[in-house]
């Protein structure tokens, strides 16, 4: 029989993440919502709680706990703040290309600092020409002696203004079919974070633009084989990017259900709690079914990833399902709360705004369906 239960140790990881979220993340949420800015205190707390070290092997200063543990942590943190979950998920997304395709020298140079949170990571693929079609990017690189010269702009990049180490996808200046991925570092001449977005949801998670003009990148910063960079970027997004969004979505689903149950048990209508009304029960049941199904899909994919199996298709299914389900959950939670659901004092209004940012991140639902259909037809 298939064992669907988490191990005793994984349950403890959940507890550790839960305690962190309740004590360190929750107090920062009002400020993040108000200002829309990253809480650097929260980033520091995440680092101290070893959140950035989860997927990095012990030999490079990490914990080597893998992707199920990461999903657990993301779910629990996102239950309290999807913005904090998103920030954390993209740290891992930035780390993954180095982890998977980096040379030993690159791993030794970058991973220990990324594990401790001394340096923060991100990855940059999307451009104004689109993120769903990475071949349409306009950023270019050209060889110049031993170095590469990069030019271009990236947009909608999570952690753009706080990241120190960013894996960037660019196109060969002379060969439009060749792409390469480079590690770019804060402080490189000609490389800077520019416009900062003001998002409707996930406020307090930084999103912005990156610009690089005649930026010289040493050959030591090329990740993987020159010309094969599309695979490097997409592999990271396929597994870690989608997997991370599943964690964010599951956390939001769980939060929506929790507040809805609490409100439905406390709100009295017709002389009884509204949780006794069948129409409310129907919504709670739908939310519960979606959460259970989302967890089965997400944790199955993470378990495959931990075994070293290809899991990007399974994560596409989980990402599609759980982010759509999170939007449904936020709508139902808002409906259950009635007029209160429209008030900023109630978390459901934030859940509603956050849910809409989950969709496009790491690939829209429509793109997930393209991937799933391709998998089905293959």
């Amino acid at each position, binding site marked *: 029989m298939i064992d669907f239960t988490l191990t005793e140790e994984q349950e403890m*990881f959940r*507890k550790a993440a839960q305690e962190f979220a309740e004590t360190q993340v929750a107090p920062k949420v009002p400020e993040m919502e108000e200002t829309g800015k990253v809480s650097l205190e929260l980033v520091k707390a995440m680092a101290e*709680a070893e959140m950035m070290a989860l997927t990095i092997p012990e030999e490079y200063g990490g914990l080597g706990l893998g992707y199920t543990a990461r999903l657990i942590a993301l779910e629990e943190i996102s239950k309290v703040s999807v913005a904090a979950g998103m920030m954390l998920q993209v740290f891992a997304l930035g780390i993954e290309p180095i982890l998977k395709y980096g040379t030993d020298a690159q791993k030794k140079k970058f991973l220990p600092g990324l594990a401790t949170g001394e340096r923060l990571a991100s990855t940059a693929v999307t451009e104004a020409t689109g993120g769903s079609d990475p071949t349409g990017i306009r950023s270019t690189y050209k060889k110049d002696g031993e170095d590469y010269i990069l030019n271009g702009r990236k947009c909608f990049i999570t952690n753009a203004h706080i990241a120190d180490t960013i894996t960037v996808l660019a196109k060969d200046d002379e060969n439009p079919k060749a792409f390469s991925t480079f590690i770019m570092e804060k402080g490189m001449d000609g490389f800077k974070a520019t416009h900062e977005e003001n998002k409707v949801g996930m406020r307090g998670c930084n999103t912005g633009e990156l610009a690089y003009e005649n930026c010289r990148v040493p050959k030591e910063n090329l990740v993987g084989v020159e010309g094969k960079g599309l695979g490097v970027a997409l592999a990271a997004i396929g597994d870690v990017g989608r997997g991370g969004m599943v964690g964010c979505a599951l956390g939001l689903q769980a939060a929506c259900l929790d507040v809805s149950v609490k409100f439905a048990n406390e709100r009295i209508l017709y002389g009884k709690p509204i949780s006794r009304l069948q129409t409310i029960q129907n919504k709670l049941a739908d939310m519960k079914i979606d959460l259970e199904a989302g967890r089965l899909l997400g944790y199955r994919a993470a378990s495959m990833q931990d075994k070293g199996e290809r899991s990007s298709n399974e994560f596409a299914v989980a990402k599609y399902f759980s982010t759509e389900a999170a939007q449904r959950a936020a709508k139902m939670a808002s409906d259950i709360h009635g007029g209160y659901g429209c008030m900023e004092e109630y978390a459901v209004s934030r859940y509603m705004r956050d849910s809409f940012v989950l969709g496009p991140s790491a690939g829209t639902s429509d793109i997930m369906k393209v991937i799933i259909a391709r998998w089905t037809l293959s």
Partner: protein
Amino acid sequence: MFKIVVCVKAVPDPKEACNIKIDPVTKTLMRCDVPMVLNPLDKYALEAALQFKEQFDAHISVLSMGPPEAGNIVKECLALGADQGFLLSDRAFAGADAFATAYTLAKGIEKIGPFDVVFCGMASSDGSTEWVGPEIATFLKIPVVTRITEIVEYNGQWWTVKAELENGYRLVRVQIPAVFTVTRALNTPRRLSFSGIIKARKKEITQWGIQQLGVSEASVGLKGSPSIVSTIATMDSRRKVEILEGKREEKAEQLVQRLANAGVL
């Protein structure tokens, strides 16, 4: 090396208090419906031991009595930094009152070996008798200081601790080995860490039953309990809602008056 024993208990999660039900026949808590967690005050007891260990060479043993599932909370204590875990688990231990629990724990402490200090939470969140700590001390024939809020000085065999009283506090100089029951004012317990959980993989939990402890069935569990719960009832607490009428100032005046009448102000 300094030897510390921390006694811990698995209790129904206080966050799920509204779901806790009482068995009308046995008058005991129906634990199956509610997840079991580490008794909140025991975290402060463990933290006291961990803070001592950060300053001095010490070994921390965690001891609990409960069903095999209580091993989870012992494991959690190991992840928080304790060195070794002991679980007293046997069907014969079931139904123990505070006296039988303290007797069994005292036997466990003796079996663990020589010790310098025993830390306990002041009370458990489910029983709340505050008896177990003092009774352990009685069985071990050593001093006890209850409700400690501060460890003022560790001075060799003599410790000075501050303990709360209803209307103040007392400073107690006590010779160890001794039992201390701790309050929330003593420290701020640390959180579980991922690396702590990984380190706990290599730490052992030893399980002992009635045979290993060398105690008779008559002295433990329900049979060894001199007290019985004759009746138990749930408190029905209901909110009363009253809407105050009038201008803002008038309503404020009425509110203050009502709070004063209710004894809140």
